[in-house]
Structure formats: structure tokens, C-alpha cells
């Protein structure tokens, strides 16, 4: 590893941010070259660079929000993205660009024509092909430093635990209520925080659930009162709402991983773009 650090030091150059801040940097091209030469994931090259005070240039615009140590935390994290449709496609792209080191991508479905209005991973040439494969390919194209774990499976009660294993945070991007509860149950069992979003039309909501929280029951009710789906069965899902809610999910994931900022535990971030209503609602009733 010392040899890697020496090579990073030799390749690093000086840069200057628009506000005048100077920094040491390493390019995407050099990161890829060192990853190949040393036979390690690009993520590991980036962590070694950050430890030496050198910023991988692809993350330089993160720098005023994350410290070098915080970028290392993100690169050392594993996030499970459950469902790779509208929410999951946008979540995958955002977390890839921000630099989450390991992404576990889970979806057993294939693309259909009706996905094209909102699912960023879908293109006409990918119709009838795997969503998980498309997501993995997209991550590699955008940020080859990221380690990808691809699962062409739909989550159910019997595989939930093995799919969520070792995730630092799980992101619920699923499209039906029973699967959301299966995921929540597994997340609670392994002690993982869960960020959950749901969309219908141009409305939707996001919440964050820690293992000890009541969670989805506060939204969907007890098991005998839960619907299988919501009103998206009549309203559909529109991309402007899907991507907005995916962004809020990613913001929650990053804050959980870094342990800073206000997260949506026992609260519901709600948005409705018809009336431009945005609110954070308390899910626990005051007794």
C-alpha cells in the first residue's frame, strides 16, 4: 500500500477552487490507471488518496460539504438499493456520483415500455432486459471506482435477510406495500437504518426508520388494514415527483452515514406538486 501512496503522491497536482481554496488532486484517469496497476477497486485508490490529503477530482465539488474524512466514510459504506425502477434508478445515479463505495443493486424485473416515462435506467434498447444489469452497467459507466453487487431477484420474506446483509443503510425504492414491510422487517433484524419513499402521481413521501422505530406501520397501518398498492394504480407515477423524492432519500442516506444533520425519524417528508405543498409531518401522535 505504501507503493500505492507513493504513486498517488507522484501523480497528484495542485488545484484551486473557484473561491480561491487550494487543494491537492488526482484525476479520474490516474485513479483508473492505479486501480488497474494495483489490482484494487478504484474506491480503495480514492480512499488512499484522501487519507494523504489528496482529493479525487471527481469529488472536488463535494468538498465544501464533506470533509476528506467524510468522503472516506462514504467510500467505505455499503448501501442496498431495493427496487431499480423510478426511485431506484435516480437513487442509484445520485449515490454513484456522490461516491458511496459499494452499491448493492436489487431488482428481479425487466424493463417495459411503460417504464420509459420515469425510470432513468430505461431506454428503448433495454426493453425486456434486466433492471439490475442496467443499473450495474450505469454505475460502472458513471463511476468505475464503485464496487457493484448485482442481484437479479425480487425481495420477499425468504431472501430479504440475505439481500440486506452487511448494508450500512437500505433504501426502499419498491413499488408495493407488502415488499416494503418485508424489507423493513429484515432491516430491523440486522439493525440497519432504512430510508423509504413512495410516489403516486405528483405526490409522495419519504421517511427514515431506525431499528427501534415503529416505521411503516405509522404510514400504512396494521397488517389487516394495509393496501397492496396505493393510488398510483390510478394516477401512475410522474418523473418530476419520482426524482424529487429519490433526491430526498439520498440526502437521508448521506446524513445517516455521516451521522450529521436532521433525519426524518418518526416524521414524513411530504410533497404534492399540484398545490406546491411541501411539509414535514409528525407521525407519532401526541399523547
Amino acid at each position, binding site marked *: 500500500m505504501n507503493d500505492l501512496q507513493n504513486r498517488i503522491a507522484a501523480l497528484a497536482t495542485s488545484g484551486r477552487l473557484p473561491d480561491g481554496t487550494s487543494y491537492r488532486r488526482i484525476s479520474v484517469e490516474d485513479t483508473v490507471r492505479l486501480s488497474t496497476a494495483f489490482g484494487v477497486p478504484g474506491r480503495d485508490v480514492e480512499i488512499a488518496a484522501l487519507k494523504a490529503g489528496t482529493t479525487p477530482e471527481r469529488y472536488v465539488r463535494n468538498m465544501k460539504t464533506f470533509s476528506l474524512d467524510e468522503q472516506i466514510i462514504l467510500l467505505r459504506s455499503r448501501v442496498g438499493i431495493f427496487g431499480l425502477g423510478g426511485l431506484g434508478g435516480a437513487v442509484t445515479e445520485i449515490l454513484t456520483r456522490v461516491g458511496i463505495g459499494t452499491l448493492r443493486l436489487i431488482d428481479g424485473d425487466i424493463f417495459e415500455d411503460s417504464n420509459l416515462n420515469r425510470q432513468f435506467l430505461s431506454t428503448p434498447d433495454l426493453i425486456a432486459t434486466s433492471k439490475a444489469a442496467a443499473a450495474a452497467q450505469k454505475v460502472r459507466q458513471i463511476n468505475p471506482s464503485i464496487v457493484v453487487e448485482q442481484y437479479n431477484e425480487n425481495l420477499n420474506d425468504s431472501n430479504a435477510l440475505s439481500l440486506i446483509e452487511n448494508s450500512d443503510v437500505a433504501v426502499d425504492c419498491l413499488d408495493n406495500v407488502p415488499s416494503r414491510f418485508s424489507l423493513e422487517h429484515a432491516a430491523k433484524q440486522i439493525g440497519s437504518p432504512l430510508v423509504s419513499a413512495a410516489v403516486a402521481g405528483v405526490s409522495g413521501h419519504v421517511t427514515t426508520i431506525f431499528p427501534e422505530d415503529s416505521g411503516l406501520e405509522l404510514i400504512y397501518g396494521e397488517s389487516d388494514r394495509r393496501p397492496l398498492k396505493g393510488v398510483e394504480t390510478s394516477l401512475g407515477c410522474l418523473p418530476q415527483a419520482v426524482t424529487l423524492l429519490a433526491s430526498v432519500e439520498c440526502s437521508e442516506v448521506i446524513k445517516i452515514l455521516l451521522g450529521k444533520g436532521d433525519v426524518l425519524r418518526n416524521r414524513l417528508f411530504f410533497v404534492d406538486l399540484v398545490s406546491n405543498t411541501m411539509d414535514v409531518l409528525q407521525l*407519532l*401522535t401526541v399523547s
Partner: protein
Amino acid sequence: MQKYISIRLFATLNRYTPDTADSYPVRPGTTVRDLIDQLGVPLTEVKLIFIDGVKGDIASALNGGERVGIFPPVGGG
């Protein structure tokens, strides 16, 4: 004495919004269930109720001055 509340009905429930949504008259003690009946919203289409930003339920009583939000179930991705 007549009091007033504001009502927001979201997504599929938006079509039940009364013209007087910003200043809807209620008698103190009216429950959310009474309100839902008055508006003609099928109870089976209601999932979440918020009163002044805090989760309530159909038995919650309204005394005037509240902001009431009523949501159908949302589950798409």
C-alpha cells in the same frame, strides 16, 4: 359558535376539495369522520390524516383554527 378550519385533500382526494377549503366552517367538536362524511370522501380512500402537521385519526375532534390534511395511500416507486 361557528369556527373555521383549512382543508387540504391530496392526490386522488383533491377532487373532493370544497370551494371554502381555506375557511371551511365547522362546529367545535366536529370529528374528522364527520368532516370526511360532509365532503363526500369515501372513508375507504383515506389513509393518513394530519392536523396541524401531526398525525391524527378519524376520531380526532376539531375546534376551529386547525389545518387538516387528508391523504390516500401512496405506494409507488
